[in-house]
């Protein structure tokens, strides 16, 4: 029996809480508060401490899934929650004024962690706002020497979120048996698969 901790982070409104709810097999522990700043115009709740859910992998194996707050004043929670995580998923809200800069900000904030643990990047809200494109994100990641899975996802879609989790786990060092993750079923369409590596040439 094994348990793994995975963290979902990224800026406000990128869908972290939604993603934890989409993936979790248990009712999610949320710490939502009503926004009193600019976020109020976007949403009627924002995370102030963490989200928590689990994914049952069968055979007693489990993923403990945590979501961070997105606003920078809660940065101390990012540092606390990433401890002990075996992988990180960054969700970036494309329907924001400077999403590429936000990705950079989160890469910097988690710089120490992503030297040691794998991460994947999901761009949300591309249905609402197609720019910047996946290629632009891919170039940014490549410029920073990150070879990581990168997808356009919708945090409400279980299939999309499973893909993001699996792609991230597939980067994990062999000492963690990928066998344990067979409980996550995947129905990937080829067009989903956009690894930065492949786009470099």
């Amino acid at each position, binding site marked *: 029996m094994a348990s793994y901790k995975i963290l979902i982070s990224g800026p406000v409104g990128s869908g972290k809480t939604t993603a934890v709810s989409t993936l979790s097999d248990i009712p999610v522990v949320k*710490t939502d508060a009503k926004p009193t700043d600019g976020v109020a115009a976007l949403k009627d709740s924002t995370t*102030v401490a963490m989200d928590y859910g689990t994914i049952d992998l069968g055979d007693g194996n489990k993923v403990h899934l945590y979501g961070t707050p997105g606003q920078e004043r*809660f940065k101390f929670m990012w540092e606390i929650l990433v401890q002990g995580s075996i992988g990180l998923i960054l969700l970036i809200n494309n329907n924001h004024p400077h999403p590429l800069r936000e990705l950079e900000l989160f890469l910097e904030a988690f710089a120490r962690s992503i030297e040691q643990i794998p991460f994947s990047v999901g761009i949300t809200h591309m249905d609402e706002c197609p720019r910047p494109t996946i290629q632009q994100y891919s170039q940014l990641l490549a410029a920073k020497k990150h070879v990581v899975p990168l997808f356009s996802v919708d945090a409400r879609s279980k299939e999309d979120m499973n893909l993001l989790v699996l792609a991230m786990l597939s980067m994990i060092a062999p000492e963690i048996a990928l066998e344990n993750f067979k409980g996550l079923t995947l129905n990937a369409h080829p067009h989903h698969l956009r690894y930065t590596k492949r786009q470099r040439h």
Partner: protein
Amino acid sequence: MKEDAMKTILSDLNGSSGDIEASAVVSLDGLMMASLLPADVEEDRVAAMSAALLSLGERTAKELARGTLNQVLIQGSEGYTIMTEAGSEAVLTVLAKKDAKLGLIFLDISRAAKALSNLLSGA
């Protein structure tokens, strides 16, 4: 202005006991509304931490069937941090000395929390 009225309540609170070193009112989403904190304290962090802890306290009390939350108390080797809900929109955060008499402080805090709650709900 509400901020001035909040500050008056905070300064009454800080003055009510020599054991209280600082206090602040924070919105539930972690923004500073009014504060009487030492200059070396980072306001944004205090605000965000207060909101995070209060909401975790609330969730914990609920998950473990301890009812609705009144207070979160953190005891450190150098003193206490006490977070109390002030109405449905704000948290009152108080920093107290390590040898503080908690019983007395709790009374002063709940009085201040009530005053803040009335002020913020416009009562």
